[in-house]
């Protein structure tokens, strides 16, 4: 029998590992583009008014190591907790999926809803490519897209479950997914686009940064889904093996 408390704690601990994995990926693939973008920013920055000088609150060396690690791990813990709660709700309620398969499916849904859908409309931006004056609007739109993404993947599961008795598992899942894709497509078409990438900013650099950002998210969710699923299945095994033996013998 699964237990919500155990799952939540496991989710947050797996989140620490996911955060460390995300840090390793982000450090090797993301820090290069960030450094290049900061170099562009400094080369094109308006000269500071007389009497003022730029002072670094946190050095680049700290930002790219301890800072990035802290951000990744805290993010991993938070996502791991939310992920575990979702698994606790979904386990035993999505067809005949095992706990391990449920964890994998929830992680895939989490990646699509939390990372991929917002990314399609408002992709991650490297330093030097945002206008501070529009931060409020960009933050609002980003979180709106996040809510749409999460609602879409939840919608897929709810609708697929209700269609399943009539259409069968495959057709119900396809119909629900197509429906959600249409809704997300309409949202992407209707919401305002934001492009503040300055003239002269390397498109290759932008692409490398965004790919690294999506990769960091993919590593986070893949670690959550696969490691959590493995640990949950392993935790169920000893109990079931013990009760199974008398029957098997």
């Amino acid at each position: 029998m699964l237990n919500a408390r155990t799952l939540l704690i496991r989710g947050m601990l797996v989140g620490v590992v996911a955060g460390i994995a995300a840090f390793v990926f982000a450090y090797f693939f993301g820090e290069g583009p960030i450094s290049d973008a900061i170099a562009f920013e400094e080369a094109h920055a308006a000269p500071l008014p007389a009497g003022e000088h730029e002072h670094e609150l946190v050095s680049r060396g700290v930002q790219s190591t301890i800072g990035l690690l802290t951000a990744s791990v805290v993010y991993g813990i938070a996502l791991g907790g939310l992920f575990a709660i979702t698994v606790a709700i979904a386990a035993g309620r999505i067809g005949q999926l095992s706990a391990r398969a449920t964890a994998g499916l929830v992680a895939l849904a989490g990646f699509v809803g939390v990372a991929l859908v917002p990314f399609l409309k408002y992709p991650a931006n490297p330093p030097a490519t945002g206008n501070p004056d529009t931060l409020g609007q960009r933050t609002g739109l980003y979180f709106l897209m996040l809510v749409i993404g999460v609602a879409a993947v939840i919608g897929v599961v709810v609708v697929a479950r209700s269609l399943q008795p009539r259409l069968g598992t495959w057709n119900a899942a396809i119909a629900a997914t197509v429906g959600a894709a249409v809704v997300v497509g309409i949202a992407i078409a209707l919401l305002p686009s934001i492009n503040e990438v300055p003239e002269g900013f390397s498109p290759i650099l932008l692409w490398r940064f965004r790919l690294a950002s999506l990769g960091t998210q993919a590593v986070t969710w893949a670690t959550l889904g696969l490691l959590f699923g493995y640990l949950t299945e392993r935790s169920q095994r000893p109990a079931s093996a013990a009760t199974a033996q008398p029957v098997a013998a």
Partner: protein
Amino acid sequence: MATISALPAPGTAPAPIPFRQILPWAVFGVVLAVVLLYFVGAEQGITSVIAGETVHEFVHDGRHLLGFPCH
């Protein structure tokens, strides 16, 4: 049906956890996650709990790479 309860085949669905058992842990987990995500993703952006920009600057690279809007 004794064999079914005593010998769960690998890959079978677990028994659903009752919602009443999940609820308190869900509330706790969601509140904790929102606070953590706020400090990584949004603190010292459009709103600030702590004055200054030290938190923002410390998690700067992560905030960019995790896709949050950042200055």
